[in-house]
């Protein structure tokens, strides 16, 4: 029998997606008033586990108990009834409604004992109740009349927490809650979490920021490859131990050996600026070099790399390819200059899901297949060649790409761009959401292209990846280059501190 203070108990939960085992026999407990940290690499199963609790995925096996009672969570409404609420990274509020309306959305108080959809609302009661939650439980002051869209991100997050509390949630799942917060806001959130704890609410805290997880949480669960590899009190752990558990001690093997880059710059960027996005960016990218691009969301790394691909152009500055100035004012001009770009969002910006592997593979190289009529025989032989060379696991060029695992889809997209025979390859989060084996393959492929003399720029929010893969790392802060680090001497700490402050021991510029 479950102990009465147990808020949540998960036993043997598993979930498969096609060939990938996203989650395998995971069990965990969460006590009332406990803050549990959930950590793991991208693709380790954190989000699958959260989605199962939120009712977005139905597990293949396993049981979920809330307050000692078995619950069957098949859809989001079931999770809500069970008192489980997720505070999403992408806030799910209605920007045009005010705080009260947002807090009460879907559970409005109406006049009458059995109100209908058309019953008049009791606005005063809702307002008082919202005020009560915000002031008494969360201890924050908030403008209740202002549309949510005009509030800061941190304030909106608080409204979201208030909404969860108003829906009688006892278990709050926070997904990267501090990712976009300033220091003071982070501290306030930590205080709020402590208040929630005192009020007997349980929190599952999901984050990449391990030091934060270790200070905020009572206990930490580490997931790796869909399995729970550690369940320990936070006091028994430190950051390096957690990292070791997350990657299974295979950090060294994950990245291929680095080769030394050539001396000739293949891409030179001088004083590149776009108002409100990035200012005065200068760097050289050499033949065979892999340059990392680090920085927080909003630091300008993404607009910069997209500007190099002609997706939103720069207002000022020059770009030189192999010493010659080039005007990159559109995607097609960038492609003509030999620049390739792999976007971060594979599903929404990369694949043509209903079409075949072959179709996806050749999508940016069709002009090479003949003037009017496509040479589909040649197309097929290209596809077969690349599928083999890149180790893409598929039934062949005809298989719909949507049926492939994320890692294999990513390889197809990489092949799509290698097929254009680019000089410079821009990669945005090339290993986001793919499993560790596929990651290692993608790293191999990136290094292999660099060996062929191509210049590679990797934008990533994963510092370990940048250090392990790149030769140098350009760190951006508020649109400026905060510094260029040599990967051999860089650490996660130096990248992090450059990302959040401009000057760092004179490594400015580059």
């Amino acid at each position, binding site marked *: 029998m479950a102990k009465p203070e147990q808020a949540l108990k998960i036993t043997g939960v598993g979930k498969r997606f096609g060939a990938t085992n996203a989650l395998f026999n995971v069990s965990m407990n969460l006590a009332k008033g406990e803050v549990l940290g959930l950590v793991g690499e991208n693709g380790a199963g954190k989000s699958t586990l959260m989605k199962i609790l939120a009712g977005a995925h139905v597990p293949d096996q396993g049981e979920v108990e809330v307050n000692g009672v078995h619950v069957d969570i098949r859809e989001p409404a079931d999770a809500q009834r069970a008192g489980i609420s997720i505070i999403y990274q992408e806030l799910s509020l209605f920007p045009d409604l005010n705080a009260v309306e947002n807090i009460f959305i879907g559970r409005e108080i109406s006049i009458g004992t059995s109100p209908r959809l058309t019953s008049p609302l009791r606005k005063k009661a809702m307002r008082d109740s919202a005020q009560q939650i915000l002031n008494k439980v969360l201890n924050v002051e908030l403008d209740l009349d202002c549309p949510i869209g005009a509030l800061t991100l941190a304030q909106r997050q608080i409204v979201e927490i208030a909404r969860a509390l108003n829906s009688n949630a006892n278990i709050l799942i926070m997904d990267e809650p501090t990712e976009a917060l300033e220091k003071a806001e982070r501290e306030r959130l930590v205080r709020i979490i402590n208040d929630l704890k005192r009020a007997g609410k349980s929190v599952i805290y999901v984050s990449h920021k391990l030091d934060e997880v270790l200070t905020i949480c009572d206990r930490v669960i580490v997931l790796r490859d869909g399995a729970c590899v550690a369940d320990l009190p936070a006091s028994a752990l430190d950051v390096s131990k957690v990292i070791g558990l997350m990657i299974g001690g295979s950090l060294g093997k994950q990245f291929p050996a680095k080769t030394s880059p050539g001396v000739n710059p293949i891409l030179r960027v001088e004083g590149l600026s776009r108002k409100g996005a990035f200012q005065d960016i200068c760097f050289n990218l050499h033949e065979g070099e892999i340059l990392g691009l680090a920085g927080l969301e909003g630091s300008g790394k993404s607009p910069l790399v997209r500007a190099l691909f002609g997706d939103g152009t720069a207002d000022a500055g020059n770009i030189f390819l192999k010493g010659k100035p080039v005007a990159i004012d559109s995607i097609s001009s960038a492609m003509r200059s030999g620049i390739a770009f792999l976007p971060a969002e594979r599903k929404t*910006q990369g694949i*043509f899901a209903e079409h075949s592997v072959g179709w996806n593979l050749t999508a*940016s190289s069709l002009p090479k297949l003949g003037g009017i*009529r496509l040479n589909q025989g*040649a*197309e*097929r032989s290209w*596809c077969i060649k690349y599928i083999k060379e890149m180790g893409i696991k598929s039934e062949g*060029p*005809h298989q719909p790409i949507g049926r492939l695992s994320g890692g294999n889809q990513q390889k197809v997209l990489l092949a799509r761009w290698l097929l254009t025979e680019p000089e410079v390859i821009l990669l945005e989060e090339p290993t986001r959401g793919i499993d560790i084996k596929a990651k290692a393959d993608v790293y191999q492929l990136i290094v292999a292209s660099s060996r062929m003399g191509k210049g590679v720029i990797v934008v990533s929010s994963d510092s370990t990846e940048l250090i392990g893969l790149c030769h140098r790392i350009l760190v951006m802060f508020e649109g400026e280059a905060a510094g260029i680090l040599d990967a051999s001497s860089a650490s996660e700490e130096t990248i992090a501190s450059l990302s959040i402050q401009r000057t760092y021991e004179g490594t400015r510029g580059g």
Partner: protein
Amino acid sequence: MSAQTLGVKSLGSRFKLSGGGSGILIALIVLIAALGLASPRFLSLGNLTDITRQAVFVAIIAFGATLVIAMRGIDLSVGSTLAFTGLIAADLMNRGFNPFASVAASLAAGTLIGIVNGVLVAKVKIADFIVTMAMMVMTRGLIMVYTEGIPLTGLSNPTFQMFGQGFVWLVPMPVLITIVTFLAIYFLLYQTRFGRYTLSIGSNPEAARLVGIRIDHIKITVYALTGFLAALSGVLLTSRLEAAMPEAGEGYELDVIAAVVMGGTSLAGGKASLLGTAAGAILMAVVRNGLNILNVNTFWHQVVIGAIILMAVCADKFGGRLKEA
């Protein structure tokens, strides 16, 4: 055609009818067989020729609309464009212009309407539904202003009549033109970069942009092509009737969309079945013709056609689900 080379088939262009496409083909065969049993007159050569002649006006436009819909667009202006361009041809003929020049001007006008649609959708970025609806209403209004609602008749030029009424061997000219159009669009859709790009835009517009596809160019071209085909259909109809009717093509936009969707092309874009569209257009004509032959009250025709559209789309959806499972 190299339909049999492995490359073509295996890359999953809709070379073979599948999903919705095969559904409609079966429905069509069953319907023809049933009507043949119900009325011997139905399967007579004369009647079948009538059906084909009926089907071509919708079919020609629907081939273009297949591209529009595969690109996640919609074009409601085709019926008005048909009438407008038919009127231009008729009016120029009546003013003594050479029939070929008149037809060329008519086709050019249709293309121009399509380009205006395309520019407003792709460059000005107004919703396609609104743009083409406004164009539909405006063009029809212009027709009424010019004709005051009275048909333009007296098109007795034999060269002009040939377009809609002529025969090549035993094949009626409009049918021949439809077949040629079908083959041309088929080639465009499945064998060229243009076709790939059109389907890519429908499948994932953002990904399409990021592989360097000039989305605006493709969109404008697709709308222009559809305008051109609406004009072609307008010329054939005017030549057939020897008159430009102000209300010609009314409701065609819906018949066209119905034919495309019944044929298995998804309104969500990304996939197209041109053979399915052809079958869809024929099915619409068969149903109308069958109802006439069976002496069904004309008011019931609309009810039956609406029901058939719903059934075809439901069958498609259901079939798709079965396949996924």
